[in-house]
């Protein structure tokens, strides 16, 4: 019954929504089903794109742009970096299941989340109307509204998040250093020396054989 109201919105709106939803769900399924981690990461990018499309459909242009810049442009790139540099970009064996009972646990979590969503949505289906409380009108209103909320109502949360990020950066720098004050380059030099030695031994072996 209530699903009908989805199509009561303008045709373009419902078409955009359906397209966006297909992109998101297709990407999400891809993330789970892809065997290769790089393919899974790419599917994640597709999902993020779909979410950005839906943001635009809701008039949240700024969020859409930031979604693509931050998530697709930076975070997944870092994922890919780690995957490529650590050389884990191999297909996984499906038979070996690292977590016992993960399927029933996953189903339970899905049920809980779905119940929560329904409760929060008070059993209302999509109505086609903009779901935000205040209407976002005109170019750039987005940015102003967001800035106002961040720097007044949610100032503490915002500042706390920035402190958290600074702590993470400091921790990353601290972790990349050695406690004995030696430079990381020492490791590098040791590696080169070991390789040279191995090469020398190999060529010695060839000469003797």
């Amino acid at each position, binding site marked *: 019954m209530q699903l009908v109201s989805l199509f009561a919105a303008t045709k373009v709106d419902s078409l955009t929504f359906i397209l966006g939803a297909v992109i998101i769900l297709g990407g999400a399924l891809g993330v789970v089903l892809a065997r*290769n981690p*790089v*393919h899974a990461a*790419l599917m994640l*990018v597709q999902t993020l794109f779909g979410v950005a499309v839906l943001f635009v459909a809701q008039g949240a*242009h*700024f969020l*859409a*742009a*930031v979604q*693509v*810049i931050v998530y*697709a*442009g*930076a975070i997944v*790139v*870092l994922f*890919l*970096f780690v995957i*490529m*540099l650590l050389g884990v*970009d191999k297909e996984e064996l499906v038979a070996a299941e690292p977590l016992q009972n993960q399927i029933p646990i996953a189903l339970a979590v899905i049920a809980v989340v779905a119940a929560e969503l329904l409760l929060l949505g008070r059993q209302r289906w999509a109505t086609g109307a903009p779901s935000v409380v205040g209407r976002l009108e*005109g*170019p*750039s209103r*987005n*940015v102003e509204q967001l800035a106002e909320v961040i720097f007044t109502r949610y100032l503490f949360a915002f500042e706390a998040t920035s402190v958290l990020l600074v702590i993470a950066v400091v921790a990353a720098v601290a972790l990349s250093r050695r406690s004995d*004050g*030696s*430079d990381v*380059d020492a490791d590098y030099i040791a590696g080169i020396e070991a390789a040279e030695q191995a090469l020398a031994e190999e060529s010695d072996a060839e000469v003797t054989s």
Partner: protein
Amino acid sequence: MNLLHLLAADPLFNDGVDVGVVLIVALKTLITFAVLMVAVLFMVWYERKLISDMQNRIGPAKAGGRFGVLQSLADGIKLFFKEDLLPERADKRVFRLAPYLSAVPAFLSFAVVPVGGTITIASHQTNLQLADPPVGILFLLAMSGISVYGVMLAGWSSGSKYPLLGSVRASAQMVSYEAALGLSIATVVVVAGSLSTHAIVVDQSGAGPGGFLPSWNIIRLGVVPFVIFMIAATAELNRPPFDLVEAEQELVGGFHTEYSSIRFALFFLAEFMNTVTWSAIIVTLFLGGPSGPLLGVLPDWLWPIVWFLAKLMVFLSVYVWFRATLPRLRYDQLMDLGWKVLIPLSLFWLLVIAAVRVESWYAAVAIPAGLAIAFLLSRAMQVGRARVEEKVGQ
């Protein structure tokens, strides 16, 4: 402020959407595409010709007359007929996808560049700009974020070592310089009060300081953000002196080593298209886009386009000039420049600009404070380096 927002929207959509409006948008899309393709063909030829002049060579001189104007067209046709190789160890799907991830964002970025004023087609008024989204300049950053994937996946999916090394370098470089790029764009956004490229251009169209200087952002913001943007954009483009991504002596051809035929052509196209687009963006952000005096002779709607093309040519030439003049940076120099110089400097400048916007005496506090912090930072780096050298010396 409100006036700016009104001006930012394209008047084409004021009276609703009908068939005529859709046709005009389709026509604009086609024209933008065609112009961009011709611009790329021109740029390939222009770069080869200008750089050979700078290096005392002749350059293209066979195809298309004495100046070889048809050289890039000939090269393009030749590439189409080459064999399309697919490496045995390649990840086939990603290998096929990567060139498009490079070329499509390059096309899309140009859509937000205003190339002229307003014209009237069949009683419909429209801006000479394909799209004017309210977040225009962020759309550009998003597209440059996506084009990282093209480079990165091309290198990885080739299944061979030099492309992988090249793509890791490229993506690290592009991600690092995006920060400085974004911060220098932020200074422009702070004074323009809007993210829309059209509003940014309109904002620069008045009379500037002294009454005779143009009100361009390059002057209003001090030259610093312009220089930062120029350097960061060059790095983003992987053009010399930041082309260690495809350093031939070390990496064969970088991320596109394994590519041939039409797929290679797409990468080549994307690279030159990006050069044209980023030059146009520099013009838009810092040199007032199509603004300039109307000097008569030509019809009034044509002058902005002429000014825009003239400014664009300056930057296209500057990029060729960079390539002819500057030696390539080393990887550590590149990272040092990006993280230790450009990002702190652009943060500092953003602070100063914001301070001036709020109250001019804030700037009087911000500048000495910034200088003091800069001194402390450089001192800290100096001490750190001295300690490392001490350790290495032992």
